[in-house]
């Protein structure tokens, strides 16, 4: 979060209160016009801060923010700094920069004086969760309109003050002046926004209709002509980085609230085990030990110190490797209901669900029968974990008639509703103070851990900070689902594709059940069915693309960076490559033959140009020597953002190791708001998706996840990173509204690497991850 220097302390804490007092001292007049729960007040003084740490027993209300008011979005301070309030949150993507750039642009306000307050439910509008590469795409226009409305309000205030019509006023860097005259301090000719607002709230109505992503804010505002942009489209330094590289930044992991205890969870031995018995002997000998919290199958410990909680949890069975359901002082039933690992793909094929037809054209069966050449392949992709470097954490303070949270959730407003349901509280009595957490790449455990903390706090009547241990995170965070995909294609004598079939079995990736809620027998959240996570764009004469959406298969699975589409793009783009190779055609030209969409064609061509692509079919024959090199290409359309990626790989025939050496990405997400931020995101997507492709797979036995640390779930290391990641932005212009950049460049990577390995060696890798032993085995059979 781009916290104001004065309010670097955390919402809802006494430090925050103290810094707010300091802020008042240094910026007199701010108190004027405060409403109790207005966002400006909330920015400087969370309502929660006024609540005594020891619960009084009375119900407490934490009202939501009204999006139709200007002060829901914006505050101008006497020192001519400003605060943007947004319900979107930072997850490591740098989105505060992009959103603040949009606001600063419309306000004609200097970016470095604009700070962002995010997420906290009493301070911000519910703009929907921060996921799906949708922050800039959906929240961007909302903020643009709110800020444009703000500029109109400020100009009309200035018009009155300077006694000239609005048309004669200009604004530069938050200073309004007559006819562009900076005034040189002449107060009759110019005035700052800060002086105009004079510490008051901007409590005007700007209007808003609809909800979350679909909300339209300030419909009458007239945003700036994009050709006049001076802030959008520039790279500005992130305000959080100096704090993050010096230890001064406050993550949710660093928050302390008065009277706080430390909690740790003790998860069941098996996913579906029942808790049979808890032997509490010896726990009281642990210094600081407070209590065991047991509710049906939920088990946790609470202590005065973190170390005390860790030791108590370990005694009960919380550890990296658990030998059996009675390993530890808590005894669990011997549940073994997970599919055998090698039966996973069959299990997926036979799970019940609902079919969605993605494409249906011509008669695939007839075309297959009449074809010169037919191909069939199956692609398999495993469970994966988010693996945030900082395990999930939340603080809850649950009393009679209220619940307060400090959490890094990607959906504070939805989490507020979920916590209210879990605790049987009216939603008004719940507040989520949002504080940034370790990076998240979708729905990891940051919502489930709130439920853990809530249950423990309710049980002991004090605030409880719960941090998962590494094995809790790897073992129990919501996973990316495994997917199995069958493909069939056919060519005529001239090497044209005459048939295409792609059937995929996709378990849910939107299972939002809170683990602890299931363990206590009061489920909160929905399981849903897997969606068709594919954008099929090829124009083959006969096509049959069907997604079989399923419910939960074995483990709780939720969205993880380009959920489902990372996997479907792998299968589709690798199988297209198989057909191109079978036709002995250049894989780029082969794709272009069947694509009509201009933006798809543009990214493929831009990537090829940057790379220096020479037309030739893949796999020129076996290379001599231990190392074989190859190139691969693939592309995606993810929700309107198009990305084409080309990479060079080196395959070590002796070890089976794959190194990705050079990566070229052509990226079209329309107008780029924050170029360096987007580059940072693309680099992150590429590195993380190389990691997912080469290394990542959740291992499990019949009872539970067994890859519960970084040794058993390896990710990409420094020695394995590419030599270069080159990026080209396509259609970076105002004609193309800004689209998402947080996920799309993840999608092509697995196909690119698989295709490049084929080019190098002639082997086709159809199952992720491409670990050395799997590659070696494939090479041995080639």
């Amino acid at each position, binding site marked *: 979060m781009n916290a104001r220097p004065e309010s670097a302390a955390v919402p809802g804490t006494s430090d925050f209160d103290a810094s707010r007092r300091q802020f008042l001292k240094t910026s007199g007049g701010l108190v004027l016009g405060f409403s109790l729960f207005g966002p400006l007040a909330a920015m400087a003084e969370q309502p929660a801060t006024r609540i005594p740490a020891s619960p009084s027993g009375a119900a407490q209300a934490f009202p939501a923010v009204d999006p139709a008011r200007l002060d829901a979005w914006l505050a101008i301070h006497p020192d001519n700094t400003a605060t943007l309030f947004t319900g979107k949150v930072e*997850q*490591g*993507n*740098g989105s505060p920069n992009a959103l603040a750039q949009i606001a600063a642009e419309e306000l004609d306000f200097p970016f470095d004086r604009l700070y962002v307050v995010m997420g906290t439910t009493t301070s911000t509008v519910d703009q929907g969760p921060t996921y799906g590469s949708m922050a800039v795409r959906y929240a961007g226009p909302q903020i643009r309109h709110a800020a444009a409305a703000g500029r109109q309000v400020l100009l009309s205030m200035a018009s009155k003050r300077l006694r000239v019509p609005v048309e004669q006023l200009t604004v530069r860097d938050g200073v309004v002046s007559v006819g562009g005259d900076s005034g040189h301090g002449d107060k009759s000719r110019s005035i700052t926004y800060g002086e105009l607002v004079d510490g008051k709230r901007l409590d005007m109505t700007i209007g808003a209709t609809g909800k979350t992503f679909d909300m339209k804010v300030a419909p009458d505002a007239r945003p700036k002509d994009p050709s006049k942009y001076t802030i959008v489209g520039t790279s500005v*330094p*992130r305000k*959080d*980085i*100096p*704090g*993050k*590289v*010096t*230890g*001064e*930044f*406050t*993550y949710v*992991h*660093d928050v302390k609230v008065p009277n706080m205890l430390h909690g740790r969870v003790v998860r069941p031995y098996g996913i579906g085990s029942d808790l049979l018995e808890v032997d509490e002997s010896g726990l009281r000998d642990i*210094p600081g030990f407070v209590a065991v919290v047991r509710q049906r199958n939920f088990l946790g410990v609470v202590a005065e*110190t*973190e*170390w005390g909680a*860790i030791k108590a949890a370990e005694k009960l069975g919380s550890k*990296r490797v658990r030998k059996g359901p009675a390993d530890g002082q808590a005894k669990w039933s011997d549940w073994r209901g997970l599919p055998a690992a090698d039966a996973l793909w069959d299990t997926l094929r036979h799970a019940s669900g609902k079919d969605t037809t993605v494409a249906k054209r011509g008669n695939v069966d007839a075309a297959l029968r009449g074809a010169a050449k037919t191909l069939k392949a199956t692609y398999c992709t495993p469970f994966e974990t*988010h*693996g*945030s*470097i*900082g*395990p999930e954490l939340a603080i809850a303070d649950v009393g009679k008639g209220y619940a307060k949270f400090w959490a890094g959730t990607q959906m504070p407003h939805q989490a507020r509703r979920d916590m209210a349901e879990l605790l049987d509280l009216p939603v008004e009595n719940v507040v989520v103070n949002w504080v*940034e*957490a*370790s*990076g*998240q*790449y979708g729905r990891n455990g940051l919502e489930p851990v709130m439920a853990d903390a809530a249950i423990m706090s309710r049980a002991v009547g004090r605030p409880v900070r719960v*941090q998962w*241990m*590494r094995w809790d995170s790897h073992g129990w965070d919501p996973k990316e689902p495994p997917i199995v995909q069958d493909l069939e294609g056919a060519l005529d004598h001239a090497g044209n594709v005459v048939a295409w079939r792609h059937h995929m079995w996709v378990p849910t990736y939107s299972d939002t059940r809170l683990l602890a809620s299931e363990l206590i027998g009061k489920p909160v959240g929905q399981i849903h069915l897997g969606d068709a996570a594919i954008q099929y764009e090829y124009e083959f004469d006969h096509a049959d693309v069907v997604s079989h959406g399923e419910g939960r298969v074995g483990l709780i699975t939720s969205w993880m960076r380009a959920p489902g589409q990372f996997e479907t793009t792998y299968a589709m783009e690798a199988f297209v490559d198989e057909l191109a190779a079978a036709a002995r055609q250049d894989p780029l030209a082969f794709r272009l033959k069947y694509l009509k969409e201009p933006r798809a064609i543009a990214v493929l061509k831009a990537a090829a140009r940057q790379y220096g692509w020479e037309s030739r079919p893949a796999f020129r024959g076996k290379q001599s020597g231990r190392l074989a090199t190859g190139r691969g290409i693939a592309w995606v359309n993810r929700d309107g953002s198009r990305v084409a990626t080309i990479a060079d790989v080196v395959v070590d025939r002796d070890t089976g190791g794959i190194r990705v050496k050079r990566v070229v990405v052509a990226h079209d997400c329309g107008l780029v708001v924050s170029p*360096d931020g987007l580059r*940072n*995101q693309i*680099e*992150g997507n*590429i*590195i*993380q998706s190389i*990691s997912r492709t080469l290394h990542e797979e959740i291992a499990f036995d019949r009872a539970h996840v067994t890859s519960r*640390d*970084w*040794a058993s779930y390896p*990710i*990409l*290391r*420094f*020695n394995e*990173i*590419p030599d270069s990641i080159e990026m080209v932005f396509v259609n970076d212009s105002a004609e193309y509204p800004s689209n998402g950049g947080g996920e799309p460049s993840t999608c092509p990577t697995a196909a690119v690497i698989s295709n490049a390995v084929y080019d190098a060696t002639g082997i086709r890798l159809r199952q992720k991850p491409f670990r050395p032993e799997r590659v070696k085995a494939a090479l041995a059979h080639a």
Partner: protein
Amino acid sequence: MPGTIHLKVNGKQHAVEAEPDTMLLYVLRDQLGLHGPKFGCGLSQCGACTVHLDGAAVRSCVLPAAAAEGRAITTLEGLGSVDKPGPLQQAFIDEQAVQCGYCINGMIMTAQAFLDAHPNPSRDDIKQALDNNLCRCGTHMRIVRAVERAAKHWKHAP
């Protein structure tokens, strides 16, 4: 049973009450309020908790606090501040080498100890030095560039 542990952190002496087997990480974070070092795995696998002990990079999540008595402990806070960042910290700012930033403590503490001992490293040396530190956001390219940028400072230092 808790006892008094004497720790010298960032040049300052502290006496803390803690069980002798408490890992140094929790004493630094919870008792001394130093949030540079982070809990990542508790298994010495990821590096988020890295501090310096007599100038060497160590994993504070597996180092009992009592074992650090009488040694000079340096945390990320000891290398500089927002107002006056150290040269390596400044290089991370210049390269914008952060996404979520949770791993960055480990990157900087590991690289700082490495540069102190190897002031003129190659890019491969830097990658090797950081190979046991994990980053999940995929900021590796920038982290390497930041360390390369800072290395120039070490090279020119007297």
